[in-house]
C-alpha cells in the first residue's frame, strides 16, 4: 500500500538496514491506536485533567504519524510540523492547567458534568 520512495542505493548494507527497519505501517497502526485511545478518553472520562491528558495523547498520536510519514517519504517537513505541534501542545497545557486550577477553585470539582453554567 505505501510505496517508499527511497533513492535506490547500491550499498547492500543500506538495503540490509532497510530490511531490518520497522515498517511504516506498524507506526501508523500504533498511532491510530493511540489516537483512538485518546479520543475515547476525551469522550468517556469526566475528569477535566484526564480529558486534557487524553487530548495530549491524541496530539502525540498525530506526532507519531507525522514522523513516520516523514521517514517514509524522506521529507523533513513532517518533523518540522511535529516541533510546531509540540510547541502548541505545551502552550495548550499551560493554559489548560491554569483553567483547571481556576475551575477547581470555583466549583471545587473537576467533573465536567458539573461545569454547565452556559447552558440555556
Amino acid at each position, binding site marked *: 500500500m505505501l510505496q517508499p520512495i527511497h533513492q535506490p542505493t547500491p550499498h547492500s548494507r543500506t538495503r540490509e538496514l532497510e530490511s531490518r527497519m520497522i515498517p511504516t505501517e506498524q507506526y501508523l497502526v500504533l498511532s491510530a491506536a493511540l489516537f483512538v485511545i485518546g479520543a475515547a478518553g476525551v469522550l468517556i472520562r469526566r475528569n477535566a485533567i484526564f*480529558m486534557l491528558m487524553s487530548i495530549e495523547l491524541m496530539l502525540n498520536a498525530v506526532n507519531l504519524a507525522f514522523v513516520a510519514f516523514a521517514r517514509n517519504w524522506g521529507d523533513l517537513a513532517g518533523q518540522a510540523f511535529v516541533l510546531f505541534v509540540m510547541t502548541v501542545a505545551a502552550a495548550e497545557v499551560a493554559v489548560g492547567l491554569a483553567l483547571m486550577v481556576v475551575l477547581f477553585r470555583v466549583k471545587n470539582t473537576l467533573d465536567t458534568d458539573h461545569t454547565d453554567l452556559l447552558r*440555556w
Partner: protein
Amino acid sequence: MDNSIAWIPVLPLIGFAVNILFGVRLKAASAWIAVAAMAGAFALSVGAFSAVVGGEGPITTKLFSWMVAGRLSVDMGFLVDECSAIMLMVVTFVGSLIHVYSIGYMHGDPRYSRFFAYLNLFAAMMLILVLGDNYLVMFMGWEGVGLCSYLLIGFWFEKPFEGATTREAARKAFVVNRIGDFGFLIAILLVWTTVGTLNFQAVMSQSEAMTGVATAVTLLLLLGATGKSAQIPLFVWLPDAMAGPTPVSALIHAATMVTAGVYMIARNAFLFDIAPISASAVVWIGAGTAFFAATIGLIQNDIKKVLAYSTISQLGYMFIAVGAGAYAFGLFHLVTHAFFKALLFLGAGAVIHALHDEQDITKMGGLRKKLPVVYWTFVIGAAALSGIPFTAGFFSKDGILAMTFASGNYGPWALGVLGAGMTAFYTWRLVFLTFHGEPRSEMAKSGDLHVPGLVMTIPLMILAAGSILTGYVELPFHMSTWFSHLIGESAPLRTGLEHPSASVETILMAISIAMVATGVVLAWKKYGAPSSEAIEATVSKQPAGISKVLWDKWYVDEVYNAAVVRPVVWSAQKCWRIFDDWVIHNGLVVFGGGLLWKSVGFFLSFWQTGKTGSYAFALVVGTAFLVWLVL
C-alpha cells in the same frame, strides 16, 4: 431692471430672517424692519408696474435653475406681466399699510417680533406666488402662504376659540387647504406629462396640445382654487381663520392670500377658455358661494365672522367673473375688495382693540362718537362693500354682474344680484349695531376705551381713500376701460364675450342699485332707527326657523363632521386598532415574528447542553463525518 424684480420677494424674506433670528433682541425695532422690507418691496413693485404699464411688455428674470431631473427642468424664474403687476401693487401696498397698522395693534404682545417675522414671511411667499413664472414656483408660494396662514391663525395658540383653541382653527385651515392643494398638484403633474414644461408662457404657446386634458386640468385647478379662496365646498376654514389676530384676517384672509385662487384662474385663462365645462363650474361655484355665504352673514353676531362670510361671498363674485371669461373684472373686484375689505377688517380690529377684545356686536353700539375716525372709515368701507354708487365696490361688482349677464349666465347673475342685496343688509346691520344707538355693554359705556393712535388710523384713512378711488380705473358705459385693457394684454376677455349695450347696462345697474337700496333700508329699519330696547330685544332673541339654520351656518360643519371628519377619524382609529395593534403588533410581524424565532431558539437550545462531553462527542462525530466525506 431685470434682477430688481427678484428683490421684491427677497426683501421681505430678509426681513423674516432678521426678525426670526434676532427678533427677541430687536424688540420694537423688529416692526420697523418688517415695515421697511415691505416698503422696499412696494417701491420696487411700483417700478415694475410702471414699466409694464408703460408698454415695455412682460418682464422675466431667471434667478437660477431650481431642479433638473431627467426631462424635468424647473427654473426659479419670475414673470411680471399685467396680471402679476396689478397683484404686486395690491399685495405690497395693502401689505405695507397692514404692517404699519400692526405696530399699534400688536403693541405689547409677548411674541411681537415673531408676528412681524411671520407677516414678512407671508408677504415673501405671496410675492413668490404672484411672481412665479411657472407652475411649480407658484405652487411653492401657494404652499408657503398656506403655512403662514396656519402659523398666524394659531398665533395666539394658548387662547380659547369657540369651545376649542386657536390651534384647532389653524389645523382646520391647514388640512382643508391640503385637499385643494392636492388638486393643484395633480393638475401640475398633468400639465407636465402633457406638454413637458411648466413655464406659463411655454404652456400657453402649446395650449392646442392641452385640448384633451384641459377640462381635467382646469377642474383640478378649480379644486385648488376653492381651497385657497374659500369657495364651496372648501370654504369652511375661513370663518375659523378669524381666530388669528385681526391684521392677519385683514391681510391674509381678506385682501391677499384668499384671492390667490382668483389670480391662479386668471393666470390659466388660456386653459379655462378651452374648457367650457370647467368655466361654467367656476361660475356656478362662485355664484353659489356668493349667495350662500351672504345668507349666513345676515345673522352672525361676531364682527369678524360677518366680515369673514362677506369675504367668502365677495370671492364668489370674483369666481363668477373669471368663470364667465371676464378676467379683468375678476381682478378689478379683487383690487377694490382688497382695499375695502382690508379697511373693514382693520376698522373692526380697531373696534375690538378699543373694547378690550370684545367681538360680539350685540355688546357694542354707540361707538360713533367715541371712535369717529374708525366710524367714518368703516362707513366708507361698508359703502364700498355693499355697492353704494360711486364707491369702488359699486363699479367692480356692477361690472361683474353686467359681464355675467352678457355671457348668458342668467342664473348666476340672479344669485349675484340677490347676494348683493343681502350684502347690503348685513354690512349696514354691522355698521348700525356697532356704531349707532346706545352702548349695550359696560365696556362700550365706559370711557376706558383703547382709542387707536395715528399708527392705526392713518392706514385706515389711506385704505378708505383707496376704497373709493380704485373704482375709477374702470367705469361703466365705456367711460373708462383702462383696467380691462391692461389686463386684456395677458388675460383677454373670452372670445364671444362683449360688453353689454348701454341700455342693458342701465337696466342691470338699476336692478342692482334697487337691491342694494332695499338691503340698506331694511337694515336701517331693523337696526338703525329703533330704540335701543327694541334692538336689544331683536339681537337677544333666540333664532328660530330659517334664521336658526342660518345661525348654525346651514349645518355645513356638522355635515362635514359627520360625512368626512368622523369617518376618517373612525377609519384611522380602526386601522390603528386592527392593522397596527393586531396585525403588526400582536399578530404577524412583531408577535408572530418574535414567536417564530423564540420557538426556533427554544428547540435549538437543546443542542447547548453545557456538558463538555457532549461537545467533545459532537466534535469527534463531526470530524469523523468530514474525514469520511473527504476520503
